[in-house]
């Protein structure tokens, strides 16, 4: 069930979760779902940003996401997990990343979801290049602290 995915086109994380849970046909093992969605902002470090290109390392990125997800499933005994990450050209207000975890307990759900996001930010080989309002572009040097 647990699933990692890279997407080249924009997606609605809530629509995707509605479909995902509908496919489970009312499974009632889990009591807790924790979700994080990262959305592209139209500003960064004080500058207006008009677009973004997300480069990745095909092969290694998928491996890293799968490992991060499986490690979390084992460590927190999750019932299920889902990671979706955009690649390529992204516009402001579009979703960049979706992390969702299902667990019997809320503490495990919260902790696992946050851990997956932090580990993904530190380890998954993605690189953001921002396009500024004057048409210039720059690589984002580092991620913000979690």
């Amino acid at each position: 069930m647990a699933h990692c995915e890279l997407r080249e086109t924009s997606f609605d994380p809530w629509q995707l979760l509605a479909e995902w849970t509908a496919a489970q046909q009312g499974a009632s093992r889990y009591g807790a779902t924790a979700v994080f969605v990262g959305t592209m902002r139209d500003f960064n470090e004080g500058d207006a940003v008009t677009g973004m290109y997300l480069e990745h390392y095909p092969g290694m990125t998928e491996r890293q996401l799968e490992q991060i997800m499986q490690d979390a499933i084992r460590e927190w005994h999750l019932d299920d997990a889902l990671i979706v990450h955009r690649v390529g050209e992204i516009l402001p207000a579009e979703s960049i990343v979706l992390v969702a975890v299902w667990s019997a307990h809320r503490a495990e759900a919260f902790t696992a979801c946050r851990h997956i996001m932090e580990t993904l930010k530190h380890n998954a080989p993605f690189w953001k290049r921002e396009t500024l309002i004057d048409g210039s572009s720059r690589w984002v040097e580092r991620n913000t602290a979690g």
Partner: protein
Amino acid sequence: MQVKVLFFAGLRERLGKADVALELPGTATVLEVWQQATGGETLPANVLVSINQVYAELSASVADGDEVAFFPPVTGG
């Protein structure tokens, strides 16, 4: 031995190449692969390294057929 070398993001742009097919005599460390593949460019302090798509150290040994990648700090999520 033959080694495939990859560069990503800002590092790829700065070096002006995305990949290099290296032919090396005998054994080599990751650092030696960097020197060979870049023609002796200075290694950025914060560069990250992988061998066969798994994170590795600069001192790690590279084997025939390996894929070695160099890239800047990651900024996904």
